[in-house]
């Protein structure tokens, strides 16, 4: 799990500590906000948890503002006013719809896309463009990175992941296009280097960027020559290459306009992948906060575990894997374990919300400008249902969300309607996303 030399747990914690206890300085404000205070940018993130939740312990009884947090959601108490609990949203495209088993793979592939992932172990896999990437596509040129994709699990398994579906559907929720999934980065050090450049203050930066642009020019020409000789699936693969080259060229051009952002003073670059889940998870949350705070990007996804994950949460006293627990067959002991895991994941979300809320920005906090969605493409793992997903939304979306409520939507309201509502608030209004039927109402 480590890379490089051995670093004691204590050092790492200190590293994480430096990330979490950031002093606020006006100078740290992204330039756009420092110069034009009225223009605090909005940010969106999507946190994915696998295998749904035990809903009896999740869904609040009351609706509206005056609701009592359920045991699973307890850790949100300090932020209850800043969070929406959304019940009744469905992920229809995660259902078989004639494709048989494979609810985990479909849930991962459908959650942000609203599209039925094609059932294939490899050839011609396809889902849809995901909401974060639709936003990144429209708004990505305003920041150094269009979006970040974070994860925890580096899957080393083999074989088919879920009933004839390629593993790709379980490993990411972010899709640039229906055939271009974006892998997650799980190493905090590499995320940090991506946000703030591996060599900050590099005097040769401009020169290197120029050279990189020239290299890309050359290979682009190379690829165009090749493209003419290809057909079918080969051509699609090469198109993916071409579009990546173009994306990188754009990024380099943007880097000229938007030079690297310095991490706030006192920030320590993480050096290893922590072995402890919670430590790892919080470090990734810290990095997401940093990315938003320094305005390196405004869009992110974070998979707290891959869909169908079988992580053993030993620190919670659970020796069975997560997936194993969810097939509890009504056994009380296992249900309790599922609830413990659900609660634990929500605590990580609460940690992120707390961090965002602790950083002043403009007249409020960083959280005020954010829309942080948290949820799963599965409702209840034991039933493999997708009807009323566990869904939370934190942050005020720059004043566009009336938080502090539990809302219940009519049956079969697509979760993609929520994504449309978020896109709209980001300034990337879109009329249709997968199975959406319209912008979700009642949020403001």
């Amino acid at each position, binding site marked *: 799990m480590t*890379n490089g030399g051995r670093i004691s747990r204590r050092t790492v914690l200190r590293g994480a500590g430096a990330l979490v206890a950031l002093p606020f300085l006006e100078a740290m404000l992204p330039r756009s906000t420092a110069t034009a205070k009225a223009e605090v940018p909005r940010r969106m993130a999507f946190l994915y948890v696998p295998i749904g939740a035990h809903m009896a312990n999740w869904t609040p009884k009351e609706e509206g503002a005056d609701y009592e947090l359920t045991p699973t959601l307890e850790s949100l108490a300090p932020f209850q006013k800043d969070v929406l609990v959304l019940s009744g949203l469905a992920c229809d495209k995660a259902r078989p719809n004639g494709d*048989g088993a494979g609810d985990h793979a479909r849930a991962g592939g459908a959650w942000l896309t609203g599209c039925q992932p094609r059932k294939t172990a490899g050839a011609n896999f396809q889902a849809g463009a995901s909401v974060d990437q639709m936003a990144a596509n429209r708004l990505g040129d305003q920041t150094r990175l269009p979006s970040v994709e974070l994860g925890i699990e580096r899957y080393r398994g083999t074989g088919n992941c879920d009933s004839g579906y390629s593993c790709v559907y379980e490993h990411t929720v972010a899709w640039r296009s229906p055939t271009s999934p974006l892998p*997650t980065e799980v190493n905090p050090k590499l995320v940090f280097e991506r946000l703030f450049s591996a060599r900050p203050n590099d005097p040769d930066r401009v020169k290197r960027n120029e*050279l990189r642009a*020239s290299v890309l020019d050359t290979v682009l020409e190379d*690829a165009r020559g090749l493209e003419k000789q290809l057909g079918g699936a080969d051509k699609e693969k090469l198109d993916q*290459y071409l579009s990546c080259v173009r994306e990188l060229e754009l990024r380099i051009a943007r880097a000229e306009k938007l030079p690297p952002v310095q991490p706030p003073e006192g920030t320590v670059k993480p050096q290893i992948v922590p072995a402890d889940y919670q430590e790892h998870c919080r470090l990734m949350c810290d990095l997401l906060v940093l990315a938003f705070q320094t305005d390196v990007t405004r869009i992110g996804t974070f998979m707290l575990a891959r869909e169908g994950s079988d992580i053993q949460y030993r620190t919670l006293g659970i*020796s069975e894997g997560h997936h194993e627990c969810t097939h509890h067959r009504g056994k009380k002991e296992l249900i309790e374990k599922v609830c413990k895991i659900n609660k634990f994941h929500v605590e990580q979300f609460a940690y992120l919300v707390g961090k965002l809320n602790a950083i002043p920005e403009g007249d409020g906090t960083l959280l005020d400008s954010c829309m942080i969605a948290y949820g799963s493409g599965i409702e209840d793992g034991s039933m493999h249902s997708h009807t009323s997903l566990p869904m939370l939304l934190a942050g005020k979306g720059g004043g566009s969300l009336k938080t502090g409520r539990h809302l219940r939507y009519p049956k079969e309201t697509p979760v993609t309607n929520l994504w449309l509502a978020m896109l709209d608030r980001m300034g990337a209004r879109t009329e249709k996303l997968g199975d959406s039927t319209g912008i979700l109402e009642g949020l403001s």
Partner: protein
Amino acid sequence: MTPRHLLVAAIAMASILSCFAASRGLDAPPAPPAPGKDAPAPAFTKDLVPFLKTHCYTCHGNGKNRGELTLDKFNDEAAIQKNPKVWETVLQRVRNGEMPPKEKPRPTAAEIDSALKSLDAVLAKVDCTGTRNAGRVTLHRLNRAEYNNTIRDLVGVDFKPAADFTNDDVGYGFDNIGDVLSLSPLLLEKYLAAAESVLDQTIVIADTPKPTKNRLGGIRFSRGAGESRQGLGSVLFAKGDLFAESFCEEGEYVIRVEAFGLPVGDEPVRATVKVGDTTKEFEIKATQAEPASLELNVNLKAQTNRVTVSFLNPFTDPKIEDKAKKDRLLVVRGIVVDGPYNAPPPKLPESHRRLMAHKADLEPREAARAIVERFATRALRRPVKAAEVERFLKLYDKSEKSGERFEYRVRLAVCCVLVSPHFLFRVELDPPDAKAGTAYPINEYELASRLSYFFWSSMPDDELFALAAKGELRKDLEAQVKRMLKDLKSSAFVQNFAGQWLTLRKLANVNPDPKVFPNFDEDLRAAMYRETELFFDVILREDRSILDFLDADFSFVNERLAKHYGIEGVKGKEFRRVKLPDNRGGILTQASILTLTSNSTRTAPVKRGKWVLDQVLNTPPPPPPPDVPNLPLDKELTGSLRQVMEQHRVNPLCASCHQRMDPIGFAFENFDAIGAWREKDGKFAIDASGVLPDGKAFNGPAELKAILKDKKDLFSRCLAEKLLTYALGRGLEHYDRCAVDKVLVALDKNDYRFSTLLVETVKSEPFQMRTATGKKP
């Protein structure tokens, strides 16, 4: 046991889809022997048509076209064979219990089995005599292992630059599937950075060091010999030394010690200057007003060198009253290291010399072209066109204009090669005259790459390239396969193929509960992994029968693993070959497999059974139906694990599949969740007996293995299919069946030798050929 019985056993076990999708399963595989030779002709009209009439035509026939599917228009076998895709889907849906839909009357299990058996037999009759589809491997991006190895073999240094790359996705059980290997902007950026960093380290930009005059700081004294005095310098007053150190490049140096003496008594101040083995003595008459320069000429090696000045004749005149003036002193004002002169040119790494080699008398531009052409030919794994080389050299020209030095300019051109799609992807092109839809033999360079990525997960070597250039690789195939397997690089085949076929890589993620298994630790995990790798390796290297995978009576252990197995007399960390006790043999009883198919606190017979069906027989059970109802909990399940599971199986929905998985798993119940032998599970005695769905009974792993070994046709087909999938980097299609059949015939004739399997796979049409798309420029 009659052959008939075996067949029935195989039929019952082979209940479900393989990687051939539906194109086989229920019936014994047709090769060998040829389809239908021993088995009676499938009663297509007798078994299949009545089933369709009763259960399918209501929606998909009789004028109805639900889901745009009409089945009654297929009225004979030939019609079905012409549309295998449609019928494979039908087969799959019925098998998975998705059709007929829940609200319709359910056919009995026997009805389903018999209908599917005949459908499968119809689909299995692929015509292998006519022209065949050789399939197409999709443009294949190098995966992480392939990228690392290719860079290693290309530049000669094992950097492993892919360590920080994003994960490769997996399809059809392997991570080298062209269809699944995608590219993201993030990964492309990493390719770019990797190319830069590899080249930074392989093409060295270094000058012959130029001489400098370096005045040394940090002068120190041997104990009690002297001190530094303000306004004077470093003063020696007693017998002893002063010294300073400096790192020097190799070369000739002049060492200058600026010094003077404060004489007392009748002798002049005497001193030596020493560097390395060279010492020179000086008599110092110079005075403070005009210090002397004590010069020493030395040849130094590239290392930290020490300059030592020793005071030879300290003296104190007792007659002098003034304390400050009674001692003879040697004063050093400074030490200057001047050099290196005539330094040898910098030592270049081997990688640099090889990459940058060119004829001596070429103009720089010509030299660059020679270098880039040679590099690109190897990197792109084929001869390159002059225009391609010129394109790579564009950046060379551009940077020449901005005054960059030669090595740097070449580096840029080579960087373009390493980011080119021709390098990052394994490109195979249809020849211009290929007719759409027809198969053609891939060219010899493409063949060289297929071979090298199959056995080495890396680029072809010089010998493969040379044979391809002469067009003689195809002729020499068998010898080349043998040569490649002897090469150390073939350990990549063990790691990547065996690691994925046997799902060995999962062992890294398994975490037995330390409370239940305090014996489990990282040493044991590593030993388990190593055992299976070594076992696979020896079957490969000794060209043994692939059936040894199922029941070889030997394996490899070190002390740790021997103890775990209860084998005595093995000491130390080294692995050695041992004869196994009677209760073990073959992969199925290796601790690695037994552990990775267990839960963290207990064994999981279902997982073990499923593993055998998936990896050994390639007859995976259907996935659980999407909406399994929870069991009523009014009575708590009690008893041994077996009893609990048998209570579960009361549910007929679960029973049909679990009857296939559970008995196989229970055969291994004497092995606990980390693969150690046990007689009891808690307070319950182990019952390792079972009955397969076909009624075949067994007790314990040895008897089950005997049954499995009798299913050698299924096992060898399983291995052949997985091997071909890995070799090609694509999922198999129904038309690949002929190729697999042919491999199996040869295998049967050659005592199931591993080499036959490998050579025949390499000779097979899907490996040798490709079907043109017909999309022409």
